[in-house]
């Protein structure tokens, strides 16, 4: 039954949304790598998502915060190593979540006799 899966689907959808938002933030940070006084954006949603799943909802809105790390001489604190690693990590997590969100749908499809 899809009803029992709804928290799973809601949580995975929230994770996909959060990861997509993080992907955008990383693209923004790297685009602004030489912009004076730019502070890197950080997308936070994992802790809130874990809490939300515990409460039986699974829905969260990703929060965007500015990094408070020390800046370079030009007032910018984007670190290309960190951003690149985070980018690769986010892509893999996104692929993982996209694969996971398939499973409940595959069950529904099996139940409908389509596959």
């Amino acid at each position: 039954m899809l009803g029992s899966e709804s928290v799973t689907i809601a949580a995975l959808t929230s994770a996909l949304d959060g990861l997509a938002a993080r992907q955008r933030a990383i693209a923004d940070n790297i685009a602004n790598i030489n912009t004076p006084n730019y502070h890197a954006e950080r997308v936070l949603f994992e802790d809130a998502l874990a809490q939300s799943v515990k409460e039986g909802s699974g829905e969260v809105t990703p929060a965007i915060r500015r990094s408070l790390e020390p800046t370079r001489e030009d007032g910018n604190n984007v670190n290309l190593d960190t951003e690149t690693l985070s980018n690769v990590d986010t892509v893999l997590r996104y692929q993982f979540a996209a694969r996971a969100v398939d499973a409940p749908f595959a069950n529904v499809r099996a139940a409908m006799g389509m596959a």
Partner: protein
Amino acid sequence: MTFDAIGIASTGMTVHRKWLDAISDNLANINTATPTNGPAFQARYVEVEENAGTQGVSVRGAVFGDPEGRLVYEPSNPVADADGYVRYPDIDLGSQMTSLILAQRGYEASAAVVDRARETYTAALQIGQR
């Protein structure tokens, strides 16, 4: 929009390309002698700003170098004045070359983001196809 990482990366590429253009123009004109009754070649420096709300970056405008330049005694130069002086632009080759590397690396970094964004979109397109 959910899927605009490629668009954001492209703003980064555009800004760094414009910076590269400005640097190559400055370097090409580093030995441009002008008569002393006019301004020297003025180096162009791009001024950038962050776009509001995770929308990348854009060029705000340009700042120009000192029109005074530096006076060089070069009496054989056809544009030299009566005292034998010409104007050369006051461009520091070292800082221009440093900026060149920064601009090139910045461009490459944003170009790499495009590749990774494509991997993400491919994953999204495959949802429900297995």
